[in-house]
């Protein structure tokens, strides 16, 4: 099968999966006993006002009609209007997505920078003290409630030591750079605001560490297994007998082939980052998709919940597709199928 037909087939399947998730969440919001209008207006709102708002958002229609409306909108690229922000959900998401993308990318970098060396060292010192120590460190990473770790790090580095900034993407007195990509780090660089850039990076350190540490454990585990697998193979023994220095063997013959399988788990890790973003963004006042979704859930903002979920499902699926294509590109032995 050619690469293009593979991508096409996977994209079609992806659309079905996304549609399925959208349907599941749509019915979860509509069938379970939540009332967005009541949640927004409060219990004291006069009934006629509640009815009017309900009609305005179409919540008075039968569920199947709402579902058909929802599908038609979805194909037009619209996600309905948010009850709590009173704006189209897609606009809210466009505004907030870059913040999450920036945080998730920074966290992924942290996770890779911590996880891969830990995995390699762990494999080379298999069953040694260092291996046990590293496995313990990563076990702590997956066992730590991210919201709690975030609070504790804020307490230490912001409130007590004062060496890192507090919540938010920038200090309150620093103006946001003109919006080009929506990524504060990139926009500040593009416009030459280096002070803003430095501030943005400083604001990223704590949330990215919290999220990245959590994900690094998974990367370390896969790296360890992968390096151990390579160590068992003949070509390593051959390289040794050829008299190559151990440094050359390590980089050329062990680490390089061992890193290929790690690419496949990056998709999973990214999914974990999106998940962790919900809690981390809440702690760090990060104006991204995660905190948007949490807010939407508190107000039972149907359209915002379903919209946010659809977007996350799309991102998640696209990343997995990219990872699979990348993987078969790097390792030609993998067939599309």
């Amino acid at each position: 099968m050619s690469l293009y037909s593979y991508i096409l087939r996977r994209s079609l399947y992806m659309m079905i999966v996304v549609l399925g998730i959208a349907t599941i969440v749509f019915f979860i919001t509509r069938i379970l006993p939540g009332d967005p209008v009541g949640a927004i207006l409060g219990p004291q709102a006069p009934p006629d006002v509640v009815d009017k708002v309900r009609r305005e958002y179409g919540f008075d229609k039968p569920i199947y009609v709402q579902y058909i409306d929802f599908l038609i909108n979805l194909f037009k690229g619209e996600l309905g209007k948010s009850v709590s922000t009173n704006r189209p959900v897609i606009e809210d998401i466009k505004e907030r997505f870059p913040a999450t993308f920036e945080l998730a990318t920074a966290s992924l970098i942290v996770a890779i920078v911590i996880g891969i060396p830990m995995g390699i060292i762990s494999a080379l010192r298999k069953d040694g003290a260092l291996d046990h120590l590293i496995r313990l460190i990563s076990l702590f990473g997956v066992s730590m409630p991210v919201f709690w770790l975030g609070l504790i790090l804020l307490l230490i580095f912001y409130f007590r030591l004062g060496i890192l900034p507090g919540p938010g993407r920038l200090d309150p007195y620093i103006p946001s750079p003109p919006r080009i990509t929506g990524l504060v780090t990139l926009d500040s660089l593009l416009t030459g605001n280096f002070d803003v850039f430095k501030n943005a990076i400083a604001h990223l350190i704590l949330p990215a560490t919290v999220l990245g540490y959590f994900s690094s454990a998974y990367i370390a585990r896969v790296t360890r297994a992968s390096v151990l697998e390579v160590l068992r193979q003949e070509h390593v023994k051959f390289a040794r007998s050829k008299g190559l220095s151990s440094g050359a063997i390590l980089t050329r013959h062990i680490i390089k082939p061992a890193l290929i399988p790690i690419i496949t788990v990056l998709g999973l890790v990214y999914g974990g980052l999106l998940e962790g973003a919900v809690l981390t963004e809440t702690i760090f006042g990060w104006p991204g998709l995660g905190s948007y979704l949490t807010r939407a859930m508190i107000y039972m903002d149907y359209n915002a919940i379903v919209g946010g979920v659809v977007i996350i499902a799309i991102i998640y699926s696209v990343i997995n597709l990219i990872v699979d294509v990348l993987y078969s590109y790097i390792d030609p032995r993998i067939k599309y199928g």
Partner: protein
Amino acid sequence: MGDHMMMPETLRELMRRKLGVAGLIIISFIIILSLIAPIIAPYDPLDQRLDERLQPPSSKHLMGTDKLGRDIFSRILYGGRISLFIAVSSVVLATLIGMLIGLISGYLGGRIDDLLMRITDMFMAFPSLILALAIAAMLKPGMFNVITAISLSSWPQYARMARAVTIQVKNEPYIEAAVSIGASNTRILIGHIIPMVIPQVMIQGMINLGGAILTAAGLGFLGFGVPPPTPEWGLMVSEGRDLIQSHWWISTFPGLMIFLSVVGFNLLGDQLRDIFDVRYR
């Protein structure tokens, strides 16, 4: 420690098991503490003493008091019951749902299998915490709704596992023999397949207990879990969130307990994974 290459195999095995033993000790410790909470807790976990609010840790209040003057140590002891109960029940419920779907899917095969596996794929193609949040947000806050939310978002991996085992066992010669002598479907399922599925799914469930505690705590922290004034650990962390700068103990101790119990379950889970080599995602 330096001579680890020469360490005999059994010793190395023991070294590995040590971590499992440590996990077991931590979990037993927490279970015992929450069981004997009524005996050892110095105060009623719901008792508000406004004259003793926001006290730092002292000999009178080991972990201090919260903004309503409740004793945090006592609340943590009682909170263990809630967290453990939610984690165990949601894993049990999820494994039951997963087993049911996996058995049907694997045993019947064909279109039903296709349909069920596509649905399973959809659930797996999505971060489960977000799904759990969506479900919990729509239900009214409460312990049983938290359990429902967690299990409805975590059954798919058990379904996949149960299906794989079912298909594997179904194709064994002795099942064919049983079919040929006229054994009924129910008899094959109950007598041969289910006994093979249960242990595998149970081990995977135990491995996931730590994750279930984290999810439950996350829901509690965001306000979608057990409603106040119940002493749930995640909720307790959120109650001290705004006071973290001036009154660090309110959030720190409950979070530490979440961490400790998840470490315990994960230590044990890692050993189980090593021993049984269960595939995980």
